[in-house]
């Protein structure tokens, strides 16, 4: 490892940027500074992607230093394929979001600073490997998000932001308590406990975690396994709210709908991935036994998430709410993949291959959904701007006639979300189903209903908004401007590239996934 603390710089850069931007007096200046910083981060993330030694698969760019020795807290950062992919996604979505934030005029410096703080929190979350500062960053990302919704959101922003904050806060508190319990249980006499994710994963793989819990935490005479389940429940709640897993999702539609569109892009593009990331980084390695034990109900919840959210999307009449529910649906596939691998797979011909397929699919789906959903919200933002705030499913009609480029490009993004082969969405979904089907046949078979209903939802949207006779009200609706075209062309091109040549990502994440599968002991 080189001595240069490149991941710390990655996290500190937007933090520094935020501090600088918040003091700037001028809107334009703040905007260009924030954009500059986000592009710097993007360049850095691309550099990381480039220098990352993919074949290795393990943690790289590791920095480790004692922080609070008495508590055993180390500053420990590093990325593997998973972390790196999320860093890259964050680095791509944040500048996109900032680029469409040009219409924010009130307290613009503060807005841009908050976005940069959020980015710092995300980078920190995706690189930290010690619970202590990981949790700091996890919370750090929540607060700017709350403020962004609360201060710049739509008419119903106050309840939405509060709901969002309290929901995720409850999850966070549950998780914090759970980790404190683990910390206490793993502390040696006179020494400190373990906060280190990697270390905890090893403990769990050795089967040493449950006995330690039983010995140290004598709660109501519960066995180690039961205590572990309670703790697992706490952590699960934290992540389930974030993803979200039904029934912990009710904050999401309101928040996505009320947040200003660039912030919705961040929420759905990156923040929703924090939950799935947590499942992969923390829950699967540290609580394999509990996940396996609760696998059937968890799979059922994942299926319910997939099917119900798709159906609920069909009943919505607000484009943003439709996309919000569709977002839940897409992340449901990720959870389906995560839960499905939590089995020994004794009756499967090649369990390791299927698990790797499912997990690779999950990772791809995270990235692809981030890209596609952010792009879709961007389009809705354009539409909302043109229509003066209207974004109902039935407010438009036939606008393909006056805005063919807009409709064509948004159509591509919509079909990517639908999972059309040739575009990015398909590869992830295919790999997830390829892996999940042999591991959990019924769940996979039921989940395809979600695919079908998503298609209905998206085609209905195309039919009502783009097709049909032109609604005379919009006969002057302007098509995409050149600047907007230049902006959307980037994610659209990425959709094609990743759909046709998914190796760009898979070659980097596959070694990591293969290692993960090897380390998972069921």
């Amino acid at each position: 490892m080189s001595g240069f603390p490149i991941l710390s710089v990655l996290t500190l850069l937007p933090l520094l940027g935020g501090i600088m931007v918040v003091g700037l007096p001028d809107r334009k200046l703040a905007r260009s500074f924030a954009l500059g910083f986000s592009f710097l981060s993007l360049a850095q993330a691309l550099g990381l992607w480039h220098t990352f030694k993919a074949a290795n698969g393990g943690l790289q760019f590791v920095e480790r230093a004692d922080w609070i020795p008495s508590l055993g807290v180390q500053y420990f950062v590093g990325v593997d394929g998973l972390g790196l992919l999320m860093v890259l996604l964050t680095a791509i979505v944040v500048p996109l979001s900032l680029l469409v934030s040009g219409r924010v005029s009130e307290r613009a410096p503060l807005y841009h600073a908050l976005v940069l703080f959020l980015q710092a929190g995300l980078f920190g979350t995706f690189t930290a490997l010690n619970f202590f500062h990981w949790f700091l960053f996890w919370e750090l990302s929540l607060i700017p998000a709350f403020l962004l919704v609360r201060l710049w959101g739509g008419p119903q922003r106050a309840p939405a932001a509060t709901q969002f904050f309290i929901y995720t806060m409850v999850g966070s508190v549950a998780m914090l308590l759970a980790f404190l319990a683990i910390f206490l249980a793993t502390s040696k006499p006179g020494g400190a406990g373990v906060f280190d994710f990697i270390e905890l994963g090893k403990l769990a793989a050795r089967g040493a975690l449950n006995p330690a819990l039983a010995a140290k935490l004598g709660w109501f005479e519960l066995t180690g396994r039961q205590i572990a389940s309670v703790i697992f429940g706490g952590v699960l709640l934290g992540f389930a709210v974030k993803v979200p897993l039904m029934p912990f999702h009710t904050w999401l539609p309101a928040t996505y709908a009320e947040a200003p569109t660039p912030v919705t892009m961040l929420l759905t593009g990156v923040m929703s991935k924090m939950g799935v990331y947590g499942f992969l980084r923390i829950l699967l390695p540290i609580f394999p036994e509990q996940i396996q034990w609760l696998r059937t109900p968890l799979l059922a919840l994942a299926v319910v998430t997939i099917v119900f959210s798709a159906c609920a999307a069909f009943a919505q009449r607000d484009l943003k709410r439709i996309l919000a529910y569709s977002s839940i649906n897409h992340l449901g596939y990720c959870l389906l993949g995560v839960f499905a691998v939590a089995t020994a797979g004794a009756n499967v011909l090649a369990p390791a291959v299927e698990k790797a397929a499912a997990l690779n699919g999950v990772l791809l789906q995270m990235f692809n959904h981030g890209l596609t959903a952010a792009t879709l919200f961007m389009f809705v933002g354009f539409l909302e701007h043109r229509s003066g705030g209207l974004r109902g499913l039935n407010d438009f009609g036939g606008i393909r006639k006056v805005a063919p480029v807009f409709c064509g490009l948004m159509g591509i993004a919509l079909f990517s979300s639908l999972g059309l082969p040739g575009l990015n969405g398909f590869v992830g979904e295919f790999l997830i189903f390829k892996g999940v089907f042999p591991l959990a046949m019924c769940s996979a078979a039921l989940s395809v209903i979600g695919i079908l209903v998503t298609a209905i939802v998206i085609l209905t949207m195309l039919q009502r908004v783009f097709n049909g006779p032109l609604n005379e009200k919009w006969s002057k609706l302007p098509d995409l401007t050149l600047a907007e075209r230049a902006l959307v062309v980037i994610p659209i091109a990425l959709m094609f590239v990743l759909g046709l040549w998914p190796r760009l990502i898979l070659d980097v994440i596959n070694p990591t996934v293969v290692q993960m599968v090897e380390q998972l002991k069921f």
Partner: protein
Amino acid sequence: MTWIVKNLWLIPALPILAAGLSSLAPQRCRRFSATLAIGALGFAFLVSLCAFAHTLQPGGHDGAKEVFNFEWLQFAAGDPGSLKLGWVLDPLTAVMLVMVTFVGTLIFIYSVGYMAHDENFTRFFTFLSLFAGAMLGVVIANSLLLLFISWELVGLTSYLLIGFWYHKPSAAAAAKKAFITTRIGDVAFLLGMVWLYSQTGTLLFYDQGHGCMEQSALAKMVVQTTSVGMAVSTAIGLLIFLGAMGKSGQVPLHVWLPDAMEGPTPVSALIHAATMVAAGVFLVARVYPLMGVHAEGAAVETTALQVVTWIGAITAVFAASIAVAQNDIKRILAYSTVSQLGFMMMGLGVGGVAVGMFHLITHAFFKSLLFMGAGSVIHGCHEEQDIRKMGGIRKYMPVTFLTYAVGMMALAGFPLFFSGFWSKDAIIHAAYGWSVSHVPFYLGVAGAFLTAFYMTRQMALVFWGDYRGHGSPPPPHSKLPQLIKVKSELKPHESSRPMTVPLVILAVCAVGLSIIGTPAWPWFQSFLGSHHGEGFTYEVIKIMVASTLVVFLGLGLGLWCYGRPPRQTAEEPDVLVKLPLGMHTWFARKYGVDELYEMTVIRFNAWFARACAFLDEWIWGGAVALISYALLGLAWVNRAFDELVINLGFDQGCERVSRGGQFMARLQDGRIQNYLRVIGVALVLLVLFLIWGGAK
């Protein structure tokens, strides 16, 4: 490996490239776009011919498969985690390639004439090219996944082209319906595919003995059983067949195909008659080894093939009977297509790949001919599609009439000279020899009869009699030139050259193709590698005579009903209304399948969606609200306790302090005289104190 196998990808890549280029072209580049599309597909046709010639070479035939595989992505460790795609060149591919590129090129040329006045001309050719590329991808794929990818793209382009006139609500709805109905099948297809993948570890069809359609993989699957006692191979085969049913419009997933006629007529000819809808049949032919694999020692037909046969046979009659009572010229042809696709499926089920595929190829030619002829008629009659308002067109559109008649004869199965006769006869013959049941044979015969009948009806109503549209046309030699001029604009007129030339070429093919598949010289069957070599045996001739009689019966009855005398006005009721039991109404209403779906599936979907939304808003959301209200209530209680119990004492204390403060404040009100007064009093007191204290 030869050049042609290595570069087979060029065939789909050329049209896709053309589509990409013309999608970037602005709307005004009409000529550029059309030339590009036709050129690319024409070139693909030439390459296809090379590929075809290659399969004809000695040593390269008899079912030989030449493949080219490559790794697309790596999703797990080692070789099992490598996902390969590839293409295959075998007779099946070669035949389809030539058919699709040839018919496609003709339809592209026809479209130049048909779409000449459309403002989105450029976009139309973009979509057409993309379609052709995707369809050719389906044909060359050596991997079920590559086939699926192309398959979905075909579905997408079909969606785009059906909804090409998107401003018409009916077109937009039809496009959506087509996509979703086929997607139902595709979802099953996807499941079948991942199941197959997990069973065989590969999705390549042929891979030097390791492919999923090769013996070792099939033998493994056929001995395993699922939880319901079905062989795994059968279950997978049926799931894949569901995909084929969606695309090929088999009952009960046929409802989208007639509605798809909302698209421009060239689209109907290309996609919804000749190629895409046949993709389902082609898929079954491609995975035929899987569908037909037997367990050791079993001699009966496999369950999968039985299902294919039954679905096909039922579809053939079901759709043909609906076609009898339709009045839209394109809808009749659409139901006819559904019916013929049923024949093809049945042919695959009872007779194997060659039988089904022969009908697919001949049907592609004569049905696209019929559709393009219908387009020509519609154009000539000023966008009129109702056959009751036509009549006598033969006088105005002779070329269209003659070519249409050829297509009609081929479709009806007129004996000996028309390709449709031979291909349909092969199916009926195979059904006759089917070991499981004779019912498909009778259904097939009934279908053949109905086909001859409804085609005669259509011919009679469109081309015979007098023109019934826009009042009666003027006599040819009227002495009122002024009137003629006005009226002649309303008269049907022959179509332009780009539209008629392809018609003629296709008509020649519809006749000429018969020579490659007769029992006398069954070249086609042996080329596809499954011919038994019977020649004109007694049984073959018996079936031929029988089916000839049936066809003549249908033709004769049709003429008797509709040609004698021809229909006089557009309004008079159909002859078949006299049929008992209200049969005509059932036919005309398409047995109410659409209404049934509307009442069940669609309503259920909407209801379920509302239920989900309700659940979300009131149950989950309600639970959250309840918890938050409970917490709020707790907070209120807490506050009340704080204020009433704890704060009360504190407040009283505070009040005393504050009263004291007020008193003190009054002392410091800033009036000098008060201060002086106080100082004076204090001074006096101080003096008194000192005196008193000093005395001490």
